[in-house]
């Protein structure tokens, strides 16, 4: 078994907290029930307008630069994530395709890096 991070992206103007969005919670409740056995974690995020970007300039202990806003201005923004356990990428893909963000925006699937290992 392997752990996959599923990152949920929405169009910036159809973010899940945007007023007038319909059906979000029903769709996610349904997914949560269907995937209950394989969900190992996950959270929804406040919108990109609440984001703060931090940079330390000049190495550890350097100046902390704080910027209002997300790291990158984009048409599609990160809105949350799941950690899902699956046998392989095909199984992970089947779960990803059931996450409402897959039709409301996009889902990026990435294998979780197990601490104590190095990439091949």
């Amino acid at each position, binding site marked *: 078994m*392997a752990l996959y991070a599923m990152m949920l992206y929405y169009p910036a103007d159809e973010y899940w907290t945007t007023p007038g969005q319909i059906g979000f919670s029903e769709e996610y409740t349904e997914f949560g029930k269907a995937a209950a056995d394989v969900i190992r974690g996950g959270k929804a995020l406040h919108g990109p307008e609440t984001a703060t970007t931090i940079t330390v300039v000049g190495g550890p202990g350097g100046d902390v630069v704080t910027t209002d806003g997300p790291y990158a201005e984009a048409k599609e923004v990160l809105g949350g994530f799941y950690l899902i356990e699956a046998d392989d*990428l*095909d199984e992970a893909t089947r779960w990803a395709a059931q996450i409402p963000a897959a039709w409301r925006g996009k889902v990026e*699937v990435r294998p979780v890096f*197990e601490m104590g*290992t*190095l*990439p*091949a």
Partner: protein
Amino acid sequence: MTPEERLAETVRVEGRRVLATLIRTVGSLAVAEDAVQDAVLAALASWPRTGVPDDPRAWLTVTARRKAYDVLRREAARPAKEVAAGQDLPVLAPDPAEEVVEMEPESAVRDDLLRLLFTCCHPALRREAQVALALRTLAGLEVPAIARAFLVPEATMAKRLVRARQKIAAARIPYRVPSDAELPERLPAVLAVVHLIATEGHAPSTGDGVVRVDLETEALRLARLVAELMPGEPEVLSLLALLLLTQARRPARTDAGGRPVLLADQDRSRWDRAAIREGVARLAEAVRRSGGVAGPYQLQAHLAACHSTAPSWADTDWDRIVGLYDLVLTLGPNPAVALNRAVAVGHRDGPAAALAALDADPIRTHLWHAARADALTGLGWTADARAELVAAIELAPTAPDRRLLADRLAGL
């Protein structure tokens, strides 16, 4: 045959089978590939001394397996933080002494090859990586040869292959034949990869050659392999037919000086009759099995058959060819097909009809200008035809294309 020649022969014929089986046994494409490579080096060192073993494939399989287990055992013995991600597989390496020299049954090897093909063509890999992996693992081409085929530096191709293998390992792209339910969405990628290799061989997008025999040959080999593994699939048979019917014309596609010869001017007695016969037979089988619904490769194979079975350029069935192009265009817009259709309309209905069809097409490539030059020549408008050929030469991507167009310009 010298031991070196026997080894090369064994690797060419059996290499991919040894690899495909080993991947399943050790669970890692990267480890299996390195192990097969090591086994070949070991054979190169020992066969000239000890003589060629009775069963060269068994020798390579056992040696490669032993090398793979050595690697896995070393990985397991290293501190956890050094162990490569995705290679956390068998720690239970068997003792080589207990190893049984037992060859996999033929059916298991075929399944392994099919698995490997679908792993290489997994949709989570980009097309260029799929093609490179298929050429490396299934066609057995070395990295420098693949790099040359795609005209990228060797280091770039090596990096591309390493990244693909890393993704297969880290993201756990499965080594598995898709279920029947998934097959319809997965098979097209496999066929597209094989077709792409064939197309690059038939009409190289860059470089000085009119044809790349090595790529055409590998594509045909892969198509035969897929057809052998999935004998009932009409689109697989159609692709094989398409490749056979197209490649049959290769002996006539260049003149003694290595310059390209257009289909209209080719010496048809030099075409490979056996390949045409086989292509026609495969296509007939595809038609029988497709239940009246022709897929894209079947339509293209019918077009190739029209040309390859026509006794001469003048006696080509242009009406059928236009009809087939119309069918291909119902599958979606395709500028190259629209252009070929316009040319075929010209052969059926005359140059004025060709001109009208060409002008309806918005894509202006060198082939479009060349086709327009032909139509204008047919109408007797030589000055306009010249201008079109000049435009075509400017847009032509390869030196042989430019030479051919320059010859036509000089002949006007």
